[in-house]
């Protein structure tokens, strides 16, 4: 702990401070070594520039134009802020997709994290066959945002689907879940929550890091299991919770595949599954309004960045790093 708690006047409060020894060393790097460094970096650097940075900057430029994919670049017209203006003032479907995405993320992300943490707590105990269950619970996440999974979901939750047959066993009459505008988005939420394997594995790793001495000490002091969870597990786990929260929120906002497959790429029924990214895709590729779609993408990027910043700035009040630096 001595390393990170060493006072550092330039970067107070950040955790990625390098030990002073390394920093002094950088001054001595000769030109040849610098070049070698860049050579070693190049696979990543070329990828970053070519596949991420340059297209991103191009799309920033396009967001101020009326680019429609088919027209050659040379004939594209600069329209200033018109795309951004249209988004906020005269595009009801944009606002609608914002609402759909927000309600998706606000409901699915907390439930997914709760499910992941709950199952991780169960699987953190030593009992026979626990390894098998860890594998089984992780399995849905391996399938990820796959098209195949979304197709299975559609056939499970339509009128004749397996889920309604299951309900029928109890005499409950089901609904055409995926084809009902009141339930289609909820069906997608269930799919997202069901894939809690990835945060679960991270929670499990986090739980393993909590020193058993703390529980022993708490038990000696007479803390109940619930008190131990609230006062030991949660604080010790808070960095992992924070990590999962940020990551899953970003994932939640970007949900695309399932909505695309479920609605045949339309966002239907009646726009109930018109997630932001799906709306963006339709605008860009079907309606051929790529300039406008680029503007939508940038507003989206900025919105996610703002939400992430909010997470980070509130994190200091509840995220506890056990290496001694309270933030």
């Amino acid at each position, binding site marked *: *702990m001595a390393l*990170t708690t060493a006072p550092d006047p330039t970067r107070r409060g950040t*955790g*990625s401070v390098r030990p002073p020894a390394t920093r002094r060393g950088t001054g001595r790097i000769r030109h040849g070594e610098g070049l070698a460094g860049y050579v070693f970096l190049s696979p990543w650097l070329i990828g970053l520039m070519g*596949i*991420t940075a340059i*297209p*991103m900057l*191009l*799309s*920033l430029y396009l967001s101020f134009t009326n680019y*429609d*994919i*088919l*027209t050659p670049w040379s004939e594209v017209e600069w329209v200033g802020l018109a795309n951004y203006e249209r988004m906020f003032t*005269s595009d009801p479907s944009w606002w609608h997709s914002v609402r759909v995405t927000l309600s998706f993320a606000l409901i699915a992300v907390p439930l997914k994290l709760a499910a992941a943490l709950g199952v991780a707590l169960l699987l953190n105990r030593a009992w026979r066959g626990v390894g098998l269950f860890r594998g089984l619970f992780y399995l849905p996440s391996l399938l990820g945002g796959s098209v195949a999974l979304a197709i299975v979901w559609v056939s499970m939750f*339509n*009128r004749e689907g397996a889920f309604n047959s299951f309900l029928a066993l109890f005499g409950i009459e089901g609904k*055409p879940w995926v*084809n*009902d*505008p009141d339930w289609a988005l909820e069906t997608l939420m269930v799919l997202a929550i069901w894939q809690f394997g990835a945060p679960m594995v991270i929670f499990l790793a986090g739980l393993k*890091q909590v*020193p058993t*001495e*703390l529980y022993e000490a708490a038990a000696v002091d007479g803390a109940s299991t619930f008190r131990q969870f609230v006062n*030991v597990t949660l*604080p*010790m786990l808070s*960095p*992992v919770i924070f*990590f999962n929260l*940020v*990551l899953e929120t*970003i994932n939640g906002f970007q949900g695309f595949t399932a909505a695309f497959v479920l609605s*045949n*790429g*339309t966002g*239907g*029924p*009646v*726009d109930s599954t018109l997630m932001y990214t799906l709306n963006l895709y339709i605008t860009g*590729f*079907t*309606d*051929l309004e*790529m300039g406008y779609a680029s503007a939508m*993408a*940038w507003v*989206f*990027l900025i919105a*996610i*960045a703002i939400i*992430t910043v909010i997470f980070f700035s509130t994190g200091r009040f509840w995220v*506890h*790093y*056990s*290496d*001694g630096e*309270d933030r």
Partner: protein
Amino acid sequence: MHPATPTSVPDGRTYRTPLLRRRFLRGLLAAAVALPLVGAAAACGDDAASDGKVKLSIFWWGGEARAQLTEQALDLYTKKNPDVTFEKTWQANQGYFDKLATLTAGGNPPDIFQIDDNFLAEYAARNTTLDLNKYQDSGDLDTSKFPPSLLQYGVVDGKLAGVAAGENTQGLVYNKTLLTKNGLPEPTTGMSWEEHVAWAEQVSKKTGVPGTQDPSADYKAFWVWLRQQGKDLYAGSDLGFTAEDVTRWFELWKGARDRGATPPPDVIHEGNATDITKQLVVTGKAATSWVWVNQMPELKKNTADELGVIAYPGDPSAQWARASMYWSVFRGSKHADIAADVINFLVNDPEAVKLLGTDRGLSSNLDLRRVVSDDATDPAMKQSIAVESELAEKFGESPQVPIKGHSKVKAELVKAGENAQYGRATPAEAAAQFVEASKAAIAS
């Protein structure tokens, strides 16, 4: 320091891991935040032409059967012109136009591509398609045997943007087996819309299978109905109808739903997909579907039942000789002359046309159309040829090719129609919503 941090841990394990873990988590976070949300991958590729040999790229949508027929026809061209070979790409209809647009944006569009009237104006208005008038004038592209209205249906702003690859028209496909089994009459061309709904109600009551798909969200049914009211989908660069027209159309189908002539809204929604395999007449969820006549053989493959096909209800002269799809040439193609020759071959060469059959609709070349129909053996194909030839005598004048923004208008009709079908809006509200959104869509 947190008070809980143990200070007496003897080994270095717990000393090191929190730091590592924290670094690791931060690193992962940074990576996640920086993930490319924005940006499109650029396509790359080069075509190298050398020693007089030419390779043309050609792109179409369709199923397995169409791919086989088209490949055979193109191979035939190569046989006759050994210097010309093809890079053939095809895929299902869904996603086809996304791909075509992306290829165009990437500077790598196919020399020849298949396109339909939903997108022809979008592409022609942006000069993505080559004006084929000069090949038509020079005779390299022979359209003299085409029905004039079919040829005209490929003209946008005075430019020949696409050559009809086949002719078709709207077709109401019904489940013959179901009707005969229950002793119900088959529908006939010329029934009014009211009669159709009454017939469908009767079918629902007797068989338990909803009599007809509700086509209120289907632009082609709406279009035919509009033309029977003396209106049209488009008039110049404006809409050819008013909110009152749409209200009447939605009310007609609300009446049908209330009478039990149609399936419940979620099933209607399933049938609103353009996918042939999802049409309710083949999934058994309705006795009738609203399709194109040339889709008959493909529909037949998806059901064991006998199918019949007639015109949409009302006066059949509201229907027209529609180009089921076109062949277009990319404006920047380096081999435009050869591309035009290939298209000429595909629509006018007797052998090629015979190979292609009626997969893309009736042959555009009237002389060859007769030859193909005489040779047809597949019963479903024969049936569609018979119905189309019969209807061809009743066809009215072709409307103008749908204008730029049409694909969005279509999507808006689905949205508004379904809003009414699910009972979330009254016909008048849904109609107002549709007209407003459509005006915005065609405005730009």
